[in-house]
């Protein structure tokens, strides 16, 4: 069938004076398949669009080329207009003759405007319709990790009416919260109770993920619980696997034991100080020795220092390099601690720590005093190094998602922040994605809950069907696209009983076209940015018109 292209030129209120529009118009008429060229002044306004619509209808135009301002401004409005005219919204090709032509150059740019228009026309000749369709999504959500963040996710999702399965590797829910004695803001017990009572939350403890397939809306997951292996389907997955504290004695030149104690041990002491034989006279906290770029140890040291002051009345020293105060309210806690007599000693070179007469001897150069000092502590609370939870790597390889340079969930890419990962429908919240304090983790949870709700709440998602698609006839099943897709959106499916071929999930595809560029069989077409469309533009460059 003959293609009928309508070209709509907009001179932006006759302001683009370095383009000779009549000339462009005259020559555009000669381009292949062009049946109409119209000159407008305000295509972006309602009346302009109305004008265009009636021309499209009257002229039986089936491909629209608009040479006007940047597509970043009005592309969507134009696409809607096409639909209104009864055309497929993909039958639109734009030439940016304002921002990237008239405004960008000095002198007459008629030739360039013409060439840009010709490029758009050439491209328009290869456009194919795109159909929107509804795809069903599974409304169940998998939450991995039963600590504070995971529990909160499950509760918040249940509040919004989404059913969740909460998988926890340990014996019970709670995670590291058990140690949060000093943070009364976390209502651990009531959360646990609420989860138990909620019929929309299924809790699987002592359970782990073993396999994961599929994409957003339709993940198939195997979960091992005891000797059983359960198969479940979910629409989305939220990771809340937390972190693993690690004390490496090498950092302190001491064996962890009586004197060098962990945060956990300190919490135990603070819970029941009466069990101590002797009240410790001096307690020290050492920071920035294992990892000087981490917030969490500072936060717990500050809270614990205050608790020690209150419950044990000991002298408290905090040895650190740079105190990490860049979390909400921490500067205030720091000030309060100083007011209450906690001594902060800052160093440039790491302190020398050793045991002497059953106490811990900390020798360091106090930079404020500019002098060597020695402090004897009854207990030295070791700094915890914040590490990714055990099995993070395995878990992320099960779900084909990338980890960051330190092994935490979620690649270091600003477009993924706060809670997304490169695979749609998988979210990472809280400390599993880095050194996040509990306030930030709460925020993460809410953000992920809302994003999940948006994806799944209606039970269907609208997609542009087969915008990027594999031609099953041409697919050589080399798996290249599956290996390179950054969004894990491609899998093998059986098209007939004989052969498996690659297929792209319309819902999971983010439309980058990396697969289309790399496919060695040229089996992948990307409507709008297909080879023939891009090459059509290239072909129009330099053509004398």
């Amino acid at each position, binding site marked *: 069938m003959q293609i009928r292209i309508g070209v709509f030129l907009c001179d*932006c*209120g006759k*302001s683009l004076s370095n383009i000779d529009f009549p000339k462009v118009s005259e020559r555009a008429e000669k381009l292949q398949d062009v049946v109409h060229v119209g000159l407008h*002044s*305000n295509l972006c*306004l309602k009346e302009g669009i109305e004008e265009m619509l009636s021309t499209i209808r009257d002229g039986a135009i089936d491909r629209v080329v608009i040479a006007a*301002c940047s597509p*970043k*401004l009005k592309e*969507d409005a134009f696409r809607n207009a096409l639909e209104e005219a009864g055309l497929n919204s993909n039958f639109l090709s734009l030439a940016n003759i304002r921002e990237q032509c008239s405004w960008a150059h000095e002198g007459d740019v008629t030739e360039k405007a013409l060439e840009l228009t010709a490029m758009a026309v050439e491209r328009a000749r290869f456009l194919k319709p795109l159909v929107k369709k509804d795809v069903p999504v599974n409304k169940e959500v998998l939450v991995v990790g039963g600590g504070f963040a995971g529990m909160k996710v499950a509760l*918040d999702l249940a*509040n*919004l*009416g989404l059913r969740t399965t909460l998988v926890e590797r340990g014996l019970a829910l709670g995670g590291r919260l058990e140690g949060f004695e000093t943070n009364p*803001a*976390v209502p651990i017990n009531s959360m646990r109770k609420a989860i138990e009572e909620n019929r929309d939350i299924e809790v699987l403890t002592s359970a782990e993920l073993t396999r994961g397939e599929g994409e957003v809306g339709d993940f198939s997951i195997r979960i091992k619980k005891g000797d059983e292996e359960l198969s479940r389907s979910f629409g989305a997955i939220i990771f809340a696997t937390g972190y693993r504290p690690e004390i490496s004695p090498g950092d302190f030149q001491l064996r962890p034991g009586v004197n060098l104690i962990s945060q956990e041990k300190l919490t135990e002491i603070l819970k029941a100080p009466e069990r101590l034989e002797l009240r410790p006279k001096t307690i020290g906290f050492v920071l920035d020795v294992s*990892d000087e*770029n*981490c917030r969490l140890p500072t936060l717990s040291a500050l809270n614990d220092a205050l608790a020690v002051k209150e419950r044990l009345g000991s002298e408290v020293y905090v040895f650190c390099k*740079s*105190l*990490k*105060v860049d*979390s*909400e*309210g*921490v*500067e205030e806690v720091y000030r309060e601690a100083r007011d209450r007599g906690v001594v902060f000693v*800052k160093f*440039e070179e790491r302190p020398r720590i050793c045991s002497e007469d059953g106490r811990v001897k900390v020798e360091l150069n106090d*930079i*404020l005093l500019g002098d060597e000092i020695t402090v004897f502590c009854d207990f030295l609370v070791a700094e915890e190094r914040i590490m990714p939870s055990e099995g993070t790597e395995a878990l992320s390889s099960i779900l084909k998602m990338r980890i*960051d*340079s*330190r092994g*935490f969930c*979620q690649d*270091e890419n*600003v477009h993924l*922040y*706060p*809670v997304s990962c490169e695979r749609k429908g998988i979210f990472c919240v809280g400390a599993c*994605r*880095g*050194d996040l304090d*509990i*306030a*930030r983790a*709460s*925020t*993460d*949870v*809410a*953000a992920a*809950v*809302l*994003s999940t*709700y*948006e994806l799944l*709440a209606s039970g269907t998602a609208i997609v542009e069907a087969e915008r990027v698609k594999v031609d099953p006839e041409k697919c050589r099943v080399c798996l290249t696209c599956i290996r390179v897709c950054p969004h894990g959106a491609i899998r093998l499916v059986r098209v007939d009983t004989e052969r498996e071929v690659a297929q792209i999930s319309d819902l999971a595809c983010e439309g980058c076209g990396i697969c289309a560029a790399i496919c060695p069989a040229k089996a992948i077409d990307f409507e709008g940015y297909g080879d023939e469309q891009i090459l059509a533009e290239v072909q129009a460059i330099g053509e004398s018109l």
Partner: protein
Amino acid sequence: METSSLVIGGGVAGVAAALALADNGSQVYLIETEPSIGGWAASFCCKATDVCTKCSVCVVPQKLQQVAIHPHISILTDSMVAGLSGGIGNFKVEVLQKPQYIPPERCIACGMCAEVCPTEPKAIRSPSPEAVPYSYVLDESRCLRLKGETCDLCRDICPTNAIDFNHEPEKKELGVGAIIVATGFEVFDAREMGCLGYGRYPNVLTGLDLERIFNREGYLKLPSNGKDPKKVAFVQCIGSRDESHGYCSQVCCKYAIRFARLIKYQNPNAEVTIFYIDLQTAGKGFAQFYEECQKNIRFVRGLPVEVLGTSSGELEVRFENISEGTVKRETFDVVALSVGISPKKDSWDLARTLGINLGECGFFDAKEPLNSNETNVEGIFLAGTCQGPRDIPDSIAHGMAAAQSAMEVLERCK
């Protein structure tokens, strides 16, 4: 019961909140006092060297564009909240919009009005390149017509007949189920610390100045003579962690280090020094970056007390190097003051209108520490830096979290 929602403030947190709500089907009114949305972050610059340094500025334009074209979001620029009645699920908000002499939906940004405007500087100015909506703005104080003279040049030439001097301030009443406050912050005014010479010496800049210079010019040149900077100093904690600002602004160490690195990248011969109290180097991906920076950026513990101009036009910085225990003078050709995040001075007005509390530091007060979105008024939530300092990703997260709280309210209203 209302299922639409109101977001006050079109900065990055407000925009994130509006998008999240609108994507979930709520009709969102996004109101902004300025003529365009985007807030501070829209005017910031990418700080990538040859690689991305994760400043997150590049995520802003995309979000703004999404908001601009979202069918569920109505943007009201030049607007402010003037009154509130009703309660959760059923707020009646009175919004006051300044006269829209050039309504954004009619302006095609052709620029002919500015060409004919006879005043100098022009009363009609072009929008900043990243402005959303991208439409021309009329400065009431300069416009001859609005001053009572007879000038119709711009109105006559406007090809879309967009300009109308008869516009009056407009009062609108919006019915919404939930409200998100995302009014953002003010940048600390470095003039308040007179001894550091800001405003007195052209080569004393603030972090905000650097953002603008790099955004517009792409490269840092000495403001005084246009030459490449050779010795650059950054001074941290300007307007943070002091007597009147009992908090860490959370963003300054990172932007300073990123700028330092960028300056070194563009100009490898420059010597860059950062003066600090405590370096805030935590955060996803930042540690590795900081470690690389340590190789060619000098970090000095101790804040300068005075910056003085020398006769040769350089800047003499007097500081105590705490680690060495010495007081020194050193000359630099640029001193950049890492100004922090301050609460908005007019927060008090909005707090009174909405009935929400202000905290000790002047930011809006959250009800509980673990839900920093909730206020003392049910159905009104906080997002972003109006509640406390945050960087861009944290503000986006906080905006989304506020939207989640609002969504819960709206769901209950259904």
